[in-house]
């Protein structure tokens, strides 16, 4: 199997007045071509920053992002823009604010084509934009509408069309459905899946919703305070979770079934600060099983089974 994206020891730190904020701290991931990797975690765990760093909306502090073996995180911005921008695209979380309110649907979808494919004529650009509208299920009569006239689902379709119009092979989906209603959410998820099947796209699907990520992903990485703490195939995580945090996360999800009364593992406290973290297990403050060792040593992500890695000193105990 071929890896489209390999993330190696990626770090993204922000400097704040109170110290260095470790938004993404030493993350390594492989993303197979044509597959979907789901990134889950709570707010502030750095999952969006990870996506934006892959997109080079942020510049990485250190580490590499290999796209087909080429390091795109450290190449000059100009070169990246010229050769790789079209290949890696992003769908944004909030379809309400991520579209310029002063452009109509057609202009919004034409824009990426106009900017990146300079050899096309005006008519060709328009044709291509219309083709994209059809692809994502936007009726032709909406061409001259403005985002403020449309509902969330349609706006998100515009966002998808914008990303797809550049024929990317890798798309970072940053919580693309969390601002949408349940019935609309299903429409968008199906659209994304159909597009993937048709065009062989590779997705990085960032979300806080476990059931969505399970539905759409092939592999899942759970993030906590900037680090990946568990990484495994999607089915595996719901059957054989290992890391105590992943277990807690799963057990916290309310299930829409009156007959399943789950044994719940309620975590103490809330997310600790990602600013100047100590050298220890990031989860130590909330972990019910924490020991002396957890306070003093930072666990590494270890492969325990095929394709299943966990960052916990006592992972074997929880298997």
């Amino acid at each position: 199997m071929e890896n489209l994206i390999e993330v190696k020891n990626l770090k993204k730190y922000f400097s704040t007045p109170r110290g260095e904020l470790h938004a993404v701290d030493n993350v390594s991931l492989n993303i197979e071509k044509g597959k979907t990797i789901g990134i889950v975690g709570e707010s502030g765990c750095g999952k969006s920053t990870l996506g934006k760093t892959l997109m080079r909306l942020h510049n990485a502090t250190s580490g590499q992002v290999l796209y087909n073996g080429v390091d795109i995180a450290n190449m000059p911005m100009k070169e990246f823009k010229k050769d790789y921008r079209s290949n890696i695209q992003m769908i944004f979380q909030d379809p309400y604010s991520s579209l310029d309110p002063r452009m109509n649907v057609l202009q919004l979808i034409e824009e990426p084509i106009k900017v990146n494919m300079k050899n096309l004529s005006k008519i060709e650009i328009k044709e291509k934009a219309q083709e994209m509208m059809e692809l994502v299920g936007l009726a032709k009569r909406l061409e001259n509408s403005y985002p403020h006239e449309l509902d969330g689902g349609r706006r998100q379709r515009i966002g998808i069309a914008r990303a797809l119009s550049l024929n990317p092979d890798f798309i970072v989906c940053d919580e693309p459905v969390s601002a949408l209603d349940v019935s609309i959410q299903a429409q968008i998820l199906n659209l994304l899946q159909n597009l993937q099947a048709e065009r062989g796209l590779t997705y990085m699907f960032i979300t806080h919703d476990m059931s969505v990520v399970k539905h759409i992903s092939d592999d899942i990485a759970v993030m906590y305070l900037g680090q990946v703490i568990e990484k495994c195939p999607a089915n595996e995580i719901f059957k054989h979770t290992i890391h105590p945090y992943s277990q807690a996360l799963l057990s916290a999800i309310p299930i829409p079934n009156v007959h399943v009364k789950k044994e719940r593992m309620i975590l103490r406290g809330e997310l600790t600060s990602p600013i100047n973290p100590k050298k220890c297990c990031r989860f130590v403050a909330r972990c019910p099983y924490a020991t002396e060792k957890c306070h003093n040593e930072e666990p590494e992500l270890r492969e325990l089974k095929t394709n299943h890695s966990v960052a916990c000193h006592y992972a074997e105990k929880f298997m």
Partner: protein
Amino acid sequence: MLKYILKRILYLIPILIGVSAIIFALKTVTPGDPARQILGNDATEEQVQEKRDELGLNDPVLVQYVNYVGGIVTRGDFGDSYRTGEPILTEILPRLLTSAKITLGAVMIGAIIGVLLGIISALKKYTWIDSVVLVISMFFQSVPEFVVALVLIMILAVKLHLLPATGITTWQGYIMPMLCIGLSAVAGYTRITRSSMLEVLGEDYIRTARAKGQSEKNITYHHALRNAMIPVAQSLGSNIGNAIGGGMVLETVFGVPGVGKYIVDAITQRNYPGVLGGALIIAIILTLINMIVDISFVLIDPRLKTTIISGGAKKMPKKMKAA
């Protein structure tokens, strides 16, 4: 807290250096030779040269600037008046009190009327009362202070003989200048109060207070007002600045012997050290006032207090919020 105050005081230094640099720059481009101005037209070229040396006018600009600032810091020397030969500071100091009284009174009149009108129009939003308040306050914003002054003089002094037209020999003399400056500032306060009040009244915590069964009156005065006053207080510094500026014109109109009139007189008499020295003194005072406003802010808003005491902004960079 103490650390914050110290930091804020240290922050004054670059501002003051900057202000003195601006004034000094104006001084150097001022037409006319100060030496000749002092000695008069009868002086010979040699005498003028000698005076120039004495005044340090032949030194490099930077040295002149350092001497200028040095003079201010060590001797309070803002230069001497071309007109009287007296030090600017001695001429201005007695006038400061008069100007301060007028400015303070004006700011109070403006703030009290403005905030009250703002609250009324926010509470009565979208009714005719709201529209009337807004139009009236905007009207006063559109009338130059000196025109208001002229109208007041016509009515109160000339026709009704209630107040003296000029001068401040009695306390009545203060009323009209204060009123004029105050009224023109009303619109600003009304607008800020109204919009911040409306914003605050739409906040979730107001809904929480309603859900508690709190009365509208208490919601307005106990919950909304204090939050709504934060932007009003923030605008106080620049409003004092405007009041001082307005005072310049009005002191002239009313013949009030304040700093403003001193500077305007100095301008018409081409007494450049008087103009620039006066401006610098005002700037220093205004900077100090702004500092005090900033510090007192921290006392109103507990959020600021914590961030300052814990030493640094709590806010993450904007882009992080999405993460």
